[in-house]
């Protein structure tokens, strides 16, 4: 059975594009695969949309809008193409399938009396994310040579001092590091990697008001066992960016879990290696109540290595009130 939806009966979407009216769109004209004349159509035309990507189990429906009016095309009840009857002229479309793909914006120019057949191809929604500012501190029990290797999950974008097949460091118990006769407090690297938002479990972590970020981080990082210098390095890097938002979502990753950002190989082997990364995201409207995390305590006995870093995820404007 064919579903021909008329604009006039399309439900008006409750979804608002709040705050995005100002943003520009680059709208490409969608070219039809074929155009078939139909004498039965008088002053209208029928658009057929086929979605070859929409069969990978990541979604159950296509959400669309035509000239700002939204509708839903179920892929369960209706195996057929999405069909829309419309008037001749220029029309804007948006299509959304699942979190695995970006929303598509497109447009078409059509004439009455025809069937138009279109193929809509979605762009995969993996995003390039920067793993930012991992810094590594080394605290040996006596002055010694240490070799540090990092295998980032993506590509290095920046290292300091310069990383060449690892860093060769003369490390002192007070944390002073000497590389090529220059002294440093930490080793620094950054990388960018492909990340799918589906990898993140937003049900675990914290929602923190921007104004409380400093206090929250001080508390959490002291609980983890970082000292005040390390906490200051962490806070002065992340907190200014977080505190400009009303609310942020934060999730910490510890130790082995941080291998997903990069693997560390240190010789000689430290007695204690502690890694803490923050994944965070500005929240515009959302008030989630995620489950707080267990913060493991850093053990600073013997040769101790600390690394911290993080990732800022693209802003979310999602609401959970539905």
């Amino acid at each position, binding site marked *: 059975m064919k579903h021909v939806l008329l604009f006039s009966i399309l439900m008006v979407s409750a979804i608002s594009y709040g705050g995005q009216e100002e943003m520009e769109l680059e709208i490409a004209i969608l070219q039809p695969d074929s155009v078939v004349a139909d004498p039965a159509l008088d002053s209208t035309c029928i658009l057929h949309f086929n979605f070859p990507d929409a069969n990978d189990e990541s979604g159950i429906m296509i959400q669309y809008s035509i000239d700002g009016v939204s509708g839903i095309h179920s892929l369960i009840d209706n195996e057929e193409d999405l069909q829309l009857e419309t008037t001749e002229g220029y029309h804007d479309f948006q299509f959304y399938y699942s979190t695995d793909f970006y929303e598509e914006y497109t447009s078409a120019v059509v004439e009455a009396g025809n069937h138009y057949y279109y193929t809509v191809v979605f762009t995969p929604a993996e995003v390039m994310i920067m793993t930012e500012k991992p810094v590594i501190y080394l605290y040996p029990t006596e002055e010694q040579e240490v070799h540090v290797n990092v295998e980032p999950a993506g590509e290095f974008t920046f290292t300091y001092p310069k990383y060449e097949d690892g860093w060769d460091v003369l490390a002192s118990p007070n944390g002073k590091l000497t590389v090529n006769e*220059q002294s440093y407090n930490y080793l620094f690297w950054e990388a960018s990697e492909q990340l799918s938002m589906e990898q993140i479990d937003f049900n675990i972590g914290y929602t923190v008001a921007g104004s409380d970020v400093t206090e929250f981080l001080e508390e959490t990082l002291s609980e983890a066992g970082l000292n005040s210098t390390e906490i200051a390095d962490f806070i*002065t890097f992340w907190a200014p960016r977080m505190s400009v938002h009303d609310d942020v979502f934060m999730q910490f990753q510890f130790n082995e879990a941080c291998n997903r950002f990069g693997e560390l190989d240190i010789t000689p082997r430290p007695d204690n290696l502690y890694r803490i990364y923050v994944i965070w995201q500005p929240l515009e409207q959302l008030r989630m109540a995620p489950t707080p995390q267990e913060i493991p305590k850093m053990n600073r006995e013997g040769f101790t290595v600390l690394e911290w870093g993080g990732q800022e995820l693209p802003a979310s404007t*999602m609401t959970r009130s539905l």
Partner: protein
Amino acid sequence: MMRTTYLLLFFLLISAVSFAEEKRIAATFIFDRSEPAEGLSDEQALFHFKFKNLDKEDESAEITLSCDGGENELFELKNGAFEYRTSAGTHHFTIYINDKYFEMYSHNLLIEAGRKDFYSVRTSKTEGMQIQVYKPIIYLYPEKTSSFEVSVTPKGEMAFTYPRYEDKWTGTMHPNGNIDIDGETFRYLFWESNQRMDALDPKETPGFVVKGENITQFLAEKLNQVGFSASERADFITYWGPQIQAEEQVFITFHQDSECDAFAELNISPTPDNIHRLYISWGAYSGQQVPESQELRPFNRDGFTVIEWGGQEIPTISNTLSL
């Protein structure tokens, strides 16, 4: 039903993601509508550009345009708009009005034969933007352990401080640079503020044009020249290096010592023998202007010395069309 809710949530999320890419003060061509155009030959099409936020006297300005990287063409605006006749297909534009506005770049605009497409073009003024002064950090190096007071009076509004700042920071400082406040030890004092600034103009400002990929070497050289220690240099380079490196080319100008009063005034007691401040202003730059080279003065680190560094990313006037 949960699934539906989930999808709706991410619908919004993903649309935000896809918008987040344009960072530059540049392409601001917004498609408004299309209509059939008369008087065009078979393969021709017409763009209609209407500029937003123009000053009254610029609504009939003469503008410079380059289509698809081709030669400069001059057009006179009428009521802040003009039309450009071209072939059907994909085109991109660079448009320069005058030095009150940033040069504008379009993305690739597709137009079909026989049509007139209307675009709004958002202009950006080069004057008086709200700019954040980032990460000024202050190091204290006394000759002997003693108590101190530091106050900062920024020209704009204080956006962030660490450790917490209430009218001033007070504590104990040590010759090795350690700062004790409320029983905690720090290496530096940190503040940030927001203030109004004008765009950088490489025609009028001494400085440097540097490729992003050469930034570490460039900064290391300049900071060595003025007398940063290795760990101060690492703090500076690990903060600014990654951001600047992401740009193809930047314009950089430094501000030293009393010039930094334009950002904030520092009051320190006891009075230091030397206060040295170095701020960097930088912005992505696609122009070819060779700025007048800037001389940096070396720090004197004898006696009780205070070092502060900071900076700002600030839009830079890149007028590629007038060169």
